[in-house]
């Protein structure tokens, strides 16, 4: 028996060896499995049919919210912590300002409709709440949360003045058909922001509701939802808009789903050190619908001129729209500077409202594609800072076409001194592009950047010349902050 056992053990051991040795010899060097991006995409569950729960018509939108909260008790609490409700973030340190400050849509200026304060009537129609009419709005009232704007699947829900439902909206019909946010839900605000479709973001417009593969490979070819990338937990939607923030906290990266070195060739993978994915994979923006690239407020108020929403409006001034545009490129380390109300400007120069941080010496910065929106907007000639007029609000510029009055009205609301003399100064806003990702087959090719007809201005980016010929920033030892780390 002992012998049998010993034989048996030796036999098993040797058999195992005989299998393992050739397998190890032959099968080493097999390629590693590439992570599957789909593993990270949450499968949306079929939303329960809510029609049987709601039978009686709602008199007030708040009643809908209360009805939602009966079952989804924590929904409002979660949302009320987020920027979609507060329109401002946690206190952050803004470059050039000593104290950390809470910034957001609530208190910042842009170079589209300039600022929301005093203009709540129009602006807060994109607020995920009801009745934000002035600074006294109660941000702690759960019933003022607007559930339907994100969850309505009936397609019949719309918001109007002060974020209240538009006239004629059938609240019951909307409440019966609710589900997870689809592209059109997010799109109501993010596509139509700035006063019209495709105005603000060059990479978000109506063509993304049902896009083709070539417009956006994620939403077109794969029919992905906004929330597939903008992953959401407890109503906190990830993603960062650099028009209203200065950092990347809670932001999204392509590498959340994709490998950091996803290309078959090492030459392309080497590019990822200095080039953002978006740079090559978003070849053009505003592919299908035009986006606003220039806005001149100084021309507003001219009754003589013919009105045309794409060229001139008396209330807003002169515009330029562009379609299928080549982005502008700049170094960007996912942090940005920010113009804060009251910051001094040089009216002779272009003021960058949110200049991206980073340059060629910054190891963490990469070359990014941007839509740059260029505007001419009012400033105070004496105090040399940008002014925020009351436009949509009562007595505002859109009603009376009196700039002076518009600034005086704003002074009482915002508290920003107005000297009585105003002018117009040029400002730029940078919108990093992350949507309208082309399929790989339509991504940029070598010649788009490394040829006589390069779309990148290498010298402006800090290179000696085309890095394909003169070497990259590592080879030329241009990176500074990386040296400390070794």
């Amino acid at each position, binding site marked *: 028996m002992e*012998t049998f056992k*010993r*034989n*048996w053990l*030796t*036999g098993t051991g*040797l*058999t195992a*060896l*005989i*299998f393992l*040795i*050739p*397998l190890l010899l*032959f*099968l080493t*060097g097999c*390629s590693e499995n590439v992570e599957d991006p789909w593993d990270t995409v949450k499968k949306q569950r079929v939303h329960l049919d809510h029609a049987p729960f709601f039978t009686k018509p709602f008199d007030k939108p708040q009643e809908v919210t209360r009805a939602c909260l009966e079952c989804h008790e924590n929904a409002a609490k979660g949302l009320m912590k987020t920027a979609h409700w507060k329109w401002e973030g946690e206190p952050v340190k803004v470059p050039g300002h000593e104290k950390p400050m809470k910034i957001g849509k609530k208190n910042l200026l842009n170079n589209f409709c300039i600022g929301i304060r005093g203009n709540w009537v129009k602006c807060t129609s994109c607020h995920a709440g009801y009745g934000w009419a002035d600074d006294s709005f109660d941000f702690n009232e759960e019933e003022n949360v607007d559930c339907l704007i994100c969850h309505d699947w009936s397609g019949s829900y719309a918001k109007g003045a002060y974020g209240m439902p538009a006239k004629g909206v059938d609240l019951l019909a909307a409440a019966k058909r609710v589900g997870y946010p689809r592209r059109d839900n997010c799109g109501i605000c993010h596509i139509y922001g700035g006063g019209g479709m495709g105005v603000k973001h060059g990479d978000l417009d109506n063509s993304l509701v049902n896009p083709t593969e070539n417009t956006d490979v994620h939403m077109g070819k794969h029919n992905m939802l906004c929330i597939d990338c903008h992953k959401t937990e407890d109503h906190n939607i990830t993603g960062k808009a650099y028009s209203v923030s200065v950092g990347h906290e809670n932001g999204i990266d392509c590498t959340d789903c994709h490998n950091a070195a996803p*290309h*078959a*060739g090492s*030459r392309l993978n080497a590019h990822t050190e200095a080039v953002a994915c978006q740079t090559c994979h978003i070849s053009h923006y505003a592919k299908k619908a035009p986006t606003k690239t220039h806005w001149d407020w100084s021309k507003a108020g001219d009754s003589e001129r013919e009105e045309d929403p794409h060229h001139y409006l008396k209330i807003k001034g002169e515009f330029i729209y562009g379609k299928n545009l080549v982005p502008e490129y700049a170094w960007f380390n996912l942090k940005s500077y920010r113009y804060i109300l009251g910051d001094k400007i040089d009216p002779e120069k272009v003021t960058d409202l949110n200049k991206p941080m980073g340059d060629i010496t910054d190891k963490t910065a990469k070359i990014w594609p941007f839509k740059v929106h260029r505007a001419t907007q009012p400033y105070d000639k004496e105090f040399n800072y940008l002014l925020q007029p009351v436009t949509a609000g009562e007595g505002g510029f859109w009603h009376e076409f009196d700039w002076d009055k518009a600034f005086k009205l704003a002074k009482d609301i915002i508290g920003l001194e107005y000297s009585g003399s105003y002018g117009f100064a040029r400002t730029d806003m940078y919108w990093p592009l992350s949507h309208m990702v082309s399929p*790989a*087959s339509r991504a940029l*090719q*070598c*010649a788009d950047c*490394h*040829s006589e*007809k390069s779309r990148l201005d290498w010298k402006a980016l800090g290179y000696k*010349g*085309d890095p*394909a*010929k*003169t070497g990259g920033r590592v080879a030329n030892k241009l990176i500074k902050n990386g040296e400390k780390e070794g």
Partner: protein
Amino acid sequence: MKKNIITPVFIFLAVILTVTLTVTLSVTLTVTAAWAEGDEEVEHPEIVLMDKEGNEITGPGTAISGRTTCGECHDADEINRHTKHVNQKVKVECMDCHFKDGKTIGDYTQAHMMIRRPTSQNCVSCHGIAHTGSEPLSIPGDYTHNLEYTPGKKNYGMTQRTGAVISHQRISASALNLRDKSNRNAAWDVHARLQMDCLTCHNKREGQKAFNHDINTAACTSCHDALAGHNNLTYKEKHLEVLSCQSCHVSVIYGPAFRTVDRTVVDTAGSARVELRGVDESRSHGTSLNTKYYKGFLPFLFPSKENGGAKYRISPFNLVTRWYWKSRKTDETVPLEVVKQAYYAPGSSRYAGDILKVFDKNRDNRIDAGELVLDSEEKTALIAKKLAALGVEEPEIAGTVEAFKIKHGMVSASRMKWDCSVCHAGESKMGRDILLTAASPGGPKGIGPEFSKDLQPQIQGDITVAPGGEVLLKQTASVTGHYVFGHSRTQWLRQLGVWIFFLGIFFIVVHMGVRFVGRSKHSAAEQTTAPRYLYPFFDRFWHWLMAAIFTLTVLTGLEIHFTGSFKLFGLASAVSIHDVLTPILVGNVVLALLYHFTGGQRLKAFFGFNGKIVREALTRKGRRGEQNPNRFQRLTYIVLLNILLPFQVITGVLMWAAGFRDFAPIHNFGSWLFLTFLIIHLYLTTTGHGIFSRMRAMITGYDEEVVKTGEKPDDDRMNLADMRILDAVGTMIGRPGNN
């Protein structure tokens, strides 16, 4: 004092020398550096344009002469002496390569006189289609006009011969009408995609120190280390040894390569009839080359000598067939100009009346593309008659097949979707029938062309002419001198193997028949059975392990042999598995050997060969009522494990490790025998007293033995040991008792 005079002079001379040297060197270096980078244009001093006689050119229309213009400063004569671009036939001027658009005659502006390192645009003014812009690539309208190099005219030789298009652009971005266009995302040429131009590779030969206008081609290996990559390629060294890089890295060609140039006819534009490769005429519209439907074509692989070396490597080729009139008497080719005279009305480029009458079948007063071919005796006779009248003695039609090596239009590995079966399958890239001409001239029967006398590659095949005029090259050998796994077949040996396999099946069927007929005799007898422990655990384990390995080996072997017909693991994996199994098999046999030592059996018992078993197996003696596994089974076991297994292992190892690929057909033959004996072995397991009893015994270890009434079960211990060894190694043994 003498000394005082010499020192200042010496210092003065030294300073002068140093300064001169420094200046010269730095100037030379800066010029060389800028030239090498190719980035910034070298500022060339102003030049005076001169004609052949050295007179200054003052007005438009005079040809510039490089010899006089550039020869002012450069040694133009020396350059012309050793460049390939100046000879009897080819006379390239300096400006053709160094002016911005290669213009040598006409009205010049400052823009033309940008003297620089030649770019691809300069080269393609003679060589083919190249494209650097962002507008969609299209084929120029004069593409089919110049069929032979004509100095001073736009030529497209490279593209016409091989379909090579030098462009950074994705094929899908072109203006052409291509099959599956949206998925053709590779660039026309990967090197062009990477912003390389012609001179990047065509600068100097390996080992040559400097560029000297003798334009050579650098080998792929001067930049690429093929052995460093290609790790997913099974047998990469072998592949890299026998194949040129282009064999794999030139994939489907979509460029407008010629298939046939038929100079027996001319169209009204003065061009010969041209057939393009990879174009589906039935789905093409119009006469423009841009609207034709390009299916693309896979180049043909033939062994040929590399750059004058003695070694043959497989390279991709395009075959172009040229048809032309010649004089049977003088053997001279009739120039196209004379052919034109035969077709055209005198002094015009319109067809003569009698031509129109014979050629215009559908009576629409013009000769359509389909009508412009000498597909009837009448047409041929008419042209022959007219040529004879023009002074051609005994005109006749001849055809020549030329092969052009394809060197451009490479794709990177990441863009290649090669499957092994592209070559390693019965129907593959190799050894295909090649269409030489869709409509050959020479009447309804057509005539066969001949291979050009200076044909470079080795082609084995027969040229056949179908009644419709279709000329095919039927290859008789896949690739001369190569055995391509999964594709090449040594027919007689393979057929022999298959016949033996069927013979085995036949034996089984006959045996089954005999059993079926004789079944009643034995079933009548009263039989009792008693369980008997036949196979120890390790024997059984070993047996099933071997069975599993054999099954896998046979399956992967079949997949390698019949690649493309069915898919289990994919060829690359099948080869790997097949290779891994061999050491396992050998190891397993060694293991059994160890087992026998530990089991106390003598070596002789393991290797011992005794004719007795064979004799017993072949005679009918003692077959009925045999209590041990019958002798046929023993015989198959012996053949399988003692003969075929070593045979297969040895031939396999010879192919795999020693590189004797010629053993492949023998290995294949062996596998047919192997399969035959495996099937017989399987069948014979059913010949126990019950159909599955032997199979069950190999699982449980116990066989139920037939015991004749009144008899005790056989308890021959020696026999049991015998069985154990038999099953363990399957080797032939004599009963130890007999020794």
